[in-house]
């Protein structure tokens, strides 16, 4: 009898645990389906351009021809194919195909942390005795641009495998909904509640699809840059404290946000204003 109760308790507990992220994702997706009934879910990978005809035309012109991220992809390929001093190379860490972006960020149970693609690249270098790349380094951006390009079309496939992973996911989720800064905005204020609205002439994109296209060339940056740089800018905008590239806060945030976009096809690198 006692056993049965414990077992029942255990099952409900674990059920609710595993159902959490998936329930969140369903609600997230339904929110945008309801808000933008005429826009196919997959369209949100194009950010604000899914919601604004005029801006989309300008953007398509920029994307055709010689898009400004092309060099980064080529340079990244060359770096990917180079051998380390010990004779190994990235394919020894990542497998034969560089089309792996859909699995990142992933939960690393051994290290007890969320591993983004950038962190995995550095972990690979470290285990082969190479020096770590700075996260603002062009080589890092180029390598991730190449992996993103090779992974185009792959549906995002993020997993939350255990309790510890779930804790990291929950941290990222809490960050997303936490109001912060002098202006008192949460990420969700702008990219859920006000998504589709205009802030001045800026169309606010939906949170769904936010992670599908990084690194991205931004005219404002005049270079290809990573997702966490965009996080920093959005934190700055509301006069909130920005965290460092690849900080635990941003890795957990990316983990949550990527899970929300599970199933959407990757389309990076791309261009944004």
């Amino acid at each position, binding site marked *: 009898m006692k056993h049965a109760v414990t077992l029942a308790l255990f099952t409900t507990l674990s059920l609710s645990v595993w159902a959490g992220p998936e329930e969140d994702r369903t609600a997230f997706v339904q929110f945008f389906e309801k808000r933008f009934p005429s826009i196919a879910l997959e369209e949100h990978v194009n950010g604000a351009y899914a919601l604004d005809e005029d801006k989309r035309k300008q953007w398509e012109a920029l994307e055709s021809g010689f898009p400004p991220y092309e060099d980064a992809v080529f340079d990244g390929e060359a770096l990917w194919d180079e051998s380390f001093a010990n004779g190994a190379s990235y394919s020894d860490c990542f497998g034969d195909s560089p089309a792996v972006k859909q699995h990142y960020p992933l939960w690393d149970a051994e290290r007890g942390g969320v591993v983004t693609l950038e962190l995995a690249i550095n972990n690979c270098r470290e285990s082969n005795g190479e020096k770590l790349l700075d996260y603002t380094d062009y080589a890092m951006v180029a390598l991730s641009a190449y992996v993103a390009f090779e992974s185009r079309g792959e549906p995002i496939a993020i997993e939350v495998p255990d309790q510890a992973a779930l804790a990291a996911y929950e941290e990222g989720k809490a960050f997303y909904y936490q109001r912060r800064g002098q*202006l008192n*905005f949460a990420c969700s204020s702008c990219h859920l509640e006000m998504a589709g*609205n*205009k*802030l001045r002439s*800026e169309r606010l994109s939906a949170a769904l699809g936010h992670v599908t296209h990084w690194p991205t060339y931004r005219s404002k940056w005049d270079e290809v840059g990573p997702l966490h740089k965009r996080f920093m800018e959005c934190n700055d905008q509301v006069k909130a404290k920005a965290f460092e590239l690849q900080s635990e806060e941003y890795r957990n945030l990316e983990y949550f946000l990527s899970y929300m976009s599970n199933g959407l096809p990757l389309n990076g690198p791309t261009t944004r204003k």
Partner: protein
Amino acid sequence: MPTLKFMFAVLTLLGSSIAAAADFTLEERIAKGYELAADRNAGNCFSCHMAEGAEQPGNSGPPLIMMQLRYPDRDQLKAQIADPRMRNPNTNMPPYGAHHILTDQELEWMVDFVHSL
């Protein structure tokens, strides 16, 4: 003795700030409010509100029109700008007074401006 001196200093200070506030005509105060509403680093109200004179206004908040009719009470209008969470805890409008985005003097000018719409 020092207390008296101090009180005198405070009194002169008070006196001069009252004089300074009175120096502006209503028109000037409205103009100051408008500047602050347009300034991206101050009110930036037009990022969300359509209003007369707003360039490239956004649309997250209601248009600011006929404001005297909707807010006959000046204090209520000021409270809405100083802390819109009082009326709507989930509002996306920033708490301009509570978070010290605008000073009390600036809030007064803002009210003059909004009331003129």
